[in-house]
Each structure stands twice: as structure tokens, then as C-alpha cells.
């Protein structure tokens, strides 16, 4: 039994922590929260320089071809630090999509830029405040031209290109669209978590090139999301532990009634519950990491398990971190809300928690049917 990260991976984690402590302190996160920048470009360049963006991209496309376990390690630290960069859009979603479904030409064209951090890609599915489904999707490709509006698109305002799920004659496919090209109008939208930029993108007969099989867009998206779910789950677990640590530190230092509030059972038990949620989530994430890194048949179940568990843990820890802080917790000045916002963003960004619970059971039913 070797169900832990290796020493090399732990070393990578230490390096990542040390880099992010220096270059992505919460002050840097607040600068994006309160400023006009879509993301922290200097930080992202630094991450690229360390090779993080290149981690899982094969060498022939400008990457360094490490496994997904290393990417999981980085993801956890990004989640812990709340790093305000387009890393997840570029790497968890777009790079994975290209590697799974791109033609050699498409990989050649896009992966090196993602690997070097010079190109930013976004994944565009949502069309407003409801779950997107084959029945309600209005973005449509006719010929090679995409028309419709996608919102919110994470990093859509700073991305150079997007992978778009759109309806078409075949039912729905993925398309690559140059966002700096014709027929594209983008507006930054306000969201619950301003530390991560989101856009509304209006396509008016924008040139679109199909990614992978015609009509397979929804199935492809499921496969991409399974992989991204594991990586986001590591971000969520990192965030959950950071919120737990923050609550613990505050509770140890804050006195009321002549004693640290950490000595009151109401606070102790709250933090114990946060620890329990974060620990269950972490262990489920490891399962997801194993499945992702080995391309196991269990990936759909493992990914949904990791995502459900980690979404619950991050929300719980972020929410009760505020509560532990009392009055200070709901001030703009304290950092508690940064975790609370990010937790909600990450729990809906690939589809909401209730939908993933349903998907988990569907995946279990499918895998039972397969193994029966």
C-alpha cells in the first residue's frame, strides 16, 4: 500500500508553498479583488517559469511531461493560497481538453503557448443562471461560424482563445475559437468572487474550428470535467485547510471571558467538524488523484466523489471560519471572505454540488453495470 504522495512530490509541494507564500500572499489576492486586473500577471509568469503550466503537457508540445500527481500537488497549493491566476482554465480544462481530443495540428498550435504561460485559454459552457443542457443551449455553430452568448466564462476576458460547447447540426460539439479574432465581443462581468475574472462573451458568426468528434461535445465535456474535477478538488482541499488553519489561529489568540475562545467546546467542536470534513475530502482527493494519474476505469466515480466531498469541505470550513472570527469575520478588511467566495465559485464552476451528487450515483450505477 503506497497511497501517499512520494518524497519528490512532497518536495515539489514545499517549493510551491514557499513560492506562493512569497508571490501570492493574501495581499496579492486582495489586489486583484479590489483592482482592475483580471489576474496577477507577474505571479502567473512566475508560475510558468517554474514549469507549473507545463507540468502535464508532453515534451513534444513544449511541456515537461510530468504526471498528474504533480499537478494535484500544485493545485492544492494554489487552492490554499487562493492564487488569482487563469491556471485552472488553462491547465485543468483547456490543456486537458486539447490533450484528450485535439488533432496534432491543434495541439501544436495551442499547447506550447499554454505550457509557456504566454497563451491563455478559457472553457465556455454556461449560458446564464441555469444548468446548461443539450435542450437549452442557444449558442450554435452553422458552417464554421459560432453565434451566441456564453456567460460566465472564467478568464474569458483575458483569454486568447476558448473551447466552446455549442449546438450544431450534429447535436453539440466542442469548438476552438480565437477570442482576439472577428465576431467576438467580451465584457467583464461582476461575480461573487472578484479574485477570479469572468466574462460574458458574445459570438457573432465567429470563426470556430471543431475540437474532436462531431456531436460528441457533451460526452467530451463530461470526460474533461471528470479530470478537472479532481484538480479543482485539490484546490478546494487546499482552501479548506487554509480556512481551518486561519480559524484555529484566531481561536487560539482571541480571548473572551478570560480564556482563549479555542478552549470553549462550541469552538473546539466546530473546528473538529471542519477537520473531519477536510480530512474526508483529502482522502477522497487522493483516490481521485490515483484514478486521474492512472487513467483508471474508476475515474468517473472517483472524480465525483472527490468533487462532492471537497466542495462540502471547503464551503463548511470557509463558512465556519467566518463564524469563528465573530464580528471581525464579516468585515471586508479580514481575509475570511476570500475563502468563502472562492469556495462558492469552485462548488458551482463545473456544475453545482447537487448535480454532482446525482452524477456520482449515476457513475456508480454505470460502473456497477459495467462490472456486473
Amino acid at each position: 500500500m503506497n497511497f501517499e504522495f512520494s518524497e519528490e512530490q512532497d518536495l515539489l509541494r514545499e517549493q510551491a508553498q514557499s513560492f506562493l507564500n512569497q508571490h501570492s500572499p493574501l495581499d496579492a489576492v486582495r489586489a486583484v479583488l479590489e483592482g482592475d486586473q483580471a489576474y496577477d500577471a507577474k505571479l502567473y509568469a512566475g508560475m510558468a517559469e517554474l514549469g507549473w503550466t507545463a507540468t502535464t503537457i508532453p515534451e513534444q508540445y513544449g511541456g515537461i511531461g510530468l504526471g498528474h500527481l504533480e499537478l494535484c500537488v500544485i493545485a492544492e497549493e494554489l487552492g490554499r493560497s487562493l492564487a488569482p491566476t487563469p491556471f485552472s482554465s488553462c491547465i485543468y480544462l483547456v490543456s486537458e481538453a486539447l490533450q484528450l481530443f485535439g488533432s496534432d495540428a491543434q495541439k501544436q498550435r495551442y499547447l506550447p503557448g499554454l505550457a509557456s504561460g504566454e497563451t491563455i485559454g478559457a472553457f465556455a459552457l454556461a449560458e446564464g443562471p441555469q444548468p446548461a443542457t443539450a435542450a437549452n443551449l442557444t449558442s450554435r455553430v452553422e458552417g464554421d461560424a459560432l453565434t451566441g452568448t456564453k456567460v460566465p466564462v472564467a478568464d474569458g476576458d483575458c483569454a486568447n482563445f476558448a473551447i466552446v460547447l455549442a449546438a450544431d447540426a450534429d447535436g453539440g460539439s466542442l469548438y476552438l475559437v480565437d477570442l482576439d479574432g472577428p465576431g467576438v465581443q467580451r465584457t467583464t462581468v461582476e461575480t461573487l468572487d472578484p479574485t477570479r475574472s469572468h466574462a460574458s462573451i458574445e459570438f457573432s458568426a465567429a470563426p470556430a474550428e471543431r475540437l474532436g468528434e462531431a456531436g460528441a461535445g457533451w460526452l467530451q465535456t463530461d470526460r474533461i470535467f471528470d479530470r478537472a474535477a479532481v484538480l479543482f478538488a485539490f484546490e478546494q482541499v487546499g482552501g479548506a485547510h487554509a480556512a481551518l488553519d486561519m480559524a484555529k489561529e484566531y481561536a487560539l489568540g482571541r480571548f473572551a471571558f478570560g480564556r482563549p475562545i479555542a478552549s470553549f467546546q462550541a469552538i473546539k467542536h466546530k473546528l473538529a467538524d471542519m477537520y473531519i470534513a477536510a480530512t474526508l475530502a483529502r482522502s477522497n482527493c487522493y483516490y481521485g488523484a490515483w484514478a486521474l494519474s492512472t487513467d483508471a476505469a474508476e475515474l468517473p466515480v472517483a472524480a465525483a466523489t472527490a468533487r462532492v466531498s471537497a466542495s462540502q469541505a471547503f464551503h463548511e470550513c470557509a463558512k465556519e471560519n467566518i463564524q469563528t472570527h465573530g464580528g471581525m469575520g464579516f468585515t471586508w478588511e479580514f481575509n475570511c471572505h476570500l475563502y468563502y467566495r472562492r469556495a462558492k465559485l469552485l462548488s458551482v464552476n463545473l456544475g453545482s454540488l447537487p448535480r454532482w451528487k446525482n452524477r456520482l450515483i449515476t457513475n456508480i450505477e454505470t460502473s456497477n453495470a459495467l462490472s456486473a
Partner: protein
Amino acid sequence: MDFNDTPAEAEFRAAARTFLEANATLTSGAPQRDETETEQIERAKAWQQLKQDNGWACLNWPTEYGGRGATPIELIIWNQEESRYDVPTGPFAIGLGMCGPTMIAYASEDQKREHLPRMAAGQDIWCQLFSEPAAGSDLAGLRTRAERDGDDWVINGQKIWTSGAQFSDWGILVTRTDPSVAKHKGLTFFFLNMHSPGIEVRPIKQISGGANFNEVYFTDVRIPDTQRLGEVGQGWGVSLTTLMNERLAVGNAGGADFPDLFELASKTDLDGEPAINNAAVREKLADWYCQASGLKFTNYRTISALSRGTTPGPENSITKIVSAVKMQDLGSFGLDLMDMGGILNDATLDPANLIFQQNFMGAPGYRIAGGTDEILRNIIAERVLGMPQDIRVDKNVPFSEVPTGNS
């Protein structure tokens, strides 16, 4: 068992309605307002003055101080009716609800006759200066010093979470006058002019983006001893009077509730049909309906006791804790229903989801303000169920020797 007014209550309600219909607009028919805080205060003062002129201000106060000497149930009926109208009562809530009753209980007759009618007529706005950065749940741990200097007291320190400090004319204040005695024994209570030199008010930005509270800094602020309420060292007892009135005032957290979520679920698509058809959505809706209904009818039971002229039971003590948590969970779930779009807070895209975001970002404050969930559970356990206090290490120790940690 019924929901009807007694004949006397019905008569009172009809009179209230007549006044309101003649002088105000129903909320549902009111225009969208876009006014500054100053404009809102002016409107509030005008409304309060109008009410006072017509005998509808401070209903339960004695007539000699500007009130009407009404019964508790009449006050409730008035509030029920007034709440249906588009009138600004917020700026007076703390003054009339908490400062006034404290003045009635502790001020001199001259002071009452000077200040209370002005308060009742909306001429002065009052605020309450209690909490401090290091004294939140443990309110009696406050450190703002008051030192005697001739006929005055000199105040130095900092208060926090003071609603309306920026536009208040007067305030009630609790201070520490003797750190060498036990925590609850060294406090003294005052009222003071908020325009006194040495007072600085700074707004606090909340995570919801709003700024409903302030920090108030005191630097050598002078208060004449005549404005002391209660004896020196008896400030805790006075504070309890005020807090008792706060407790009555702290009610439902509000925000998006069952009907809003029901509507959202009815119009939002989930797996090809309205989300309301989804069994998991229905279960959550049912839970929140039962909570909302339970709170509503708990409140009716309290009102019924007042209507009978008896003292209400402790049931209403559950209102804030239940409604604040519901506000948070229901808001969060509303965002889930909107899926990836739940994070959008751009009103031009879909105004509907803003109310759920407001729940989500506002509820953390409601779970804390006016008593955290944890303090409220203590209160229910101790005052309703009669369970003993936790061990108190700060009880028989001079305040200056109580451990304080970082804060």
C-alpha cells in the same frame, strides 16, 4: 384558536390603517428610490415628525415623553401595519427601541422631558455605543475608559459595530471606570452628545460590500457627570436593560426566503424540467418551509400572549438563530440552482439571483450580529432551559488581571 383581532384591537388597527393610507404609499406601489443617505435621513425625520404629530410615534412610551401609552399588542399591530408601507424607519430603530427605554428607566425627570420628546419627534437620532474590538460576545470585557475630572468624565477608547453613528446626535455609552474590581463591577453608563469634540466615526466595510456599522474613537471626550445613567460601577445593570430591549428587537434575519426559492425553482430548468419537480429540491424546500412556518407561528404565539395581556414565553428566542442559518443555507442553495451562473451578480444579466447572493454574503453577519449562534444557544440553554453557566474564570478577578491573549 383563531387569528382574529379582539374588537378593541380591530378598532386600533383600523385607525392605524386610516392614518397610513392617508400619509404613505404601500411598499408594493412605491417607486424605486435612488437617494443619498442624507436624503433618506431627511425623509425619515419628516415621517417620524408626522407620526408624532398624529400620535403614532413611540406608541408604548408614556404620553408625557412624546409617546401614546399604548399596550404592547397595539405596538405590534402598528408595526405590522407600518411595515407594509414604504416609509423609512431604520434610522430611528436603535434610538427608539433601545436608547429611549434606557433613558426612561435611568435618566432624571428633566432629562427625560428634554430628550425623549425630541427623539420621539425625529428631531434627534440616537445610537448605542457598547461593543468593542476586544469585547464582542464578552461584552462586559470592554475597555473604553472613563476617568473622573471635576464635574466631567473623560472618555478614551474605541467602540465598534455602532449602527448610525455617522448621523446620530446622541448616544448611550458604557465605559470602564474601575479596572481594579471584577469585570462586571467596574462599569459606568452615560449618554452623550455625538457632536462632542474628540469623537471620530469611521465606517466599517462588510463582506457584503455595505457599511452598516462604524468604529467610533474617543479621544479625551468630556461628558458631564449629570449625564451618567445609574450609579458609578452599576453600568452593567443599565446595559442589561438596554440589551433586554435589543433582544426583543432582534428578529427574523429576512432576506430571500421560501417563496423566492419556490419561484426560482419553478422557473429554473434542471435536467429538462423545472427544478421544482426534482425530489431533492423539494425536500430542501420542505425543510425551509417548515422552518419559516414554525417561526411565523411561534411569533403568532408571542403576539397572542401579548394580546391576552400575559407575558410571552421564551419561544421567540429561537428566531434569530433559525432564520440566520436558513438565510445562509437557502441563499447558498439558490445559487446552486443557478449552477455555473450562480456566481453572477450583475443585475443587468439577471436581477433574480442577486437576492440569493445577498443572502449568501449577508447571512454570515446575521449569524454573528446581536449575539452569535453560539451565544444564542448558550442563552437558550441557560435562560430557557435553566442549565448552568459555563465555568467563569474571569468572575472574581480584578478586570486588569483577566487574561486577554492577542486581542
